[in-house]
């Protein structure tokens, strides 16, 4: 058995020991995870980002990179009250460009495309009835009604809003079910590692 498997096996057991109660072995494993993760991200960021995308091309003569370098250095101005205003320039550039890129994209992909998919024809050209389309349409209208607060949820509006809550509950139930499935998969994956690779109890 290689050293990596032994370390991974012992650390998995250390993390699982939290299920009994908080203890020093768990705390050690947790601290190690945080430290290693941050260290790894720092190394990757340094080598794949700062070196590859900034310093190497800058020293090769790409002088335009002085602009992002300067904006990046301005961000460090937040650490001192006298230079904090410099960081606002960088933040303004980030927010301005970020919003400029994101707003039209989100409007198109999250709103227009999703809305057009929600109002699909209920009867297709060959005459077949689109039951899924009807469910989506009723679900969309009733759920939106539930989140319509300008009118009291009474009478017909109240009934439609109530129907919306049922759709929401189905969604929450489905999402929760999938989340339980996901967590079980993670645990099973770890158990498979422990039993097969670490303890060699199964093949």
């Amino acid at each position, binding site marked *: 058995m290689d050293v990596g498997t032994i370390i991974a096996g012992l650390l998995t057991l250390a993390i699982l020991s939290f*299920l*009994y109660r908080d203890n020093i072995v768990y705390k050690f494993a947790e601290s190690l995870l945080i430290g290693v*993760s941050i260290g*790894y*991200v720092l190394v*990757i*960021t340094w080598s*794949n*980002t700062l070196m*590859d*995308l900034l310093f190497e*091309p800058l020293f090769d003569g790409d002088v335009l990179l002085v602009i992002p370098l300067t904006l990046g250095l301005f961000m460090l101005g937040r650490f001192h009250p006298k230079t904090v205003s410099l960081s606002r320039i960088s933040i303004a550039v980030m927010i301005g460009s*970020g919003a400029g*890129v*994101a707003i039209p*994209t*989100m409007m198109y*992909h*999250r709103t227009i*495309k*999703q809305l*057009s*998919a929600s109002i699909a024809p209920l009867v297709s050209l060959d005459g077949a009835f689109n039951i899924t389309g009807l469910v*989506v349409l009723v679900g969309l209208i009733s759920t939106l009604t539930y989140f319509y607060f300008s009118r009291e949820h009474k009478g017909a509006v109240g009934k439609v809003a109530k129907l919306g809550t049922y759709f929401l509950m189905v*969604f929450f139930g*489905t*999402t929760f079910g*999938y*989340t*339980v*499935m*996901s*967590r*079980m*998969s*993670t*645990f*099973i*994956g*770890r*158990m*498979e*590692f422990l*039993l097969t690779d670490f303890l060699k*109890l*199964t*093949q």
Partner: protein
Amino acid sequence: MKNLLPRHYVFIGLFLVILVTMALNISLDVKVSPYTQKLFDKIDALPAGSLMMVSFDHEASSLPEIRPLALAVLRHAFKNDIKLIGVSLFPEGTLIGYRLMHNTAKEYKKEYGKDFVYLGFRPQYVAAILSMGESISATFPQDYPGNDYADIEMLQGIVNYDDINGIISIADGSLITHWIEYGGRYKLNIYGVVTAAMVTTYDPYLASGQMQAMMGGLRGAAEYEKLIGIDGGGARGMLAQSSAHLYVIFLVILGNIIYFRSKKSGKN
């Protein structure tokens, strides 16, 4: 035993259920869902020599669930002689993706630089996705091991998304949304390989046609393994997962019985 709380018994029960079912080492037969079938059909329809991009957009913590999914789709691609470009938009996914691609490529005797290549990590996923849409070589002047883009045989003539057949994003979070939103600008075919927890998030994108196909969770991996004829981690875990689900249902019913009985008897 005196110190054990009710939750400890719940954990012990779950541990025993999974331990016993895994010790049985039985691969449960699964019915392939239309989701997984569609992803399989899309990849299977690609002719040999087609080029796909695989993005490892996940963290290390979700690896136990992601690994069988990633292996299933990588094995299918290599089996069908599809060339793969690996990238990662998550720092933690970088080395995991590199190792997964290398180990799977070895199984099919695929050569680095000719059959697959790993470009590594780029920060700021929006910028990275948009940048690759213009020029992959400008985004990744070198691959992960440090070879120049121009020197890699497989990448000759590959400029941007126009030259690849699609992207398979292996994700445990919302990163596929960015592939859909920003990669969608370039008419990029997007395929999702996700953890079960993310299936409901991406379902609307699948229904609207913004994402071409998707598979999710350990069950998705088991279904895909069945389609490609491999007995992998997904199929092996199915009995344990089904038993664990039955155990959770049993606990929910038991909890409700206890609740209603205590309510009836006036206890808190």
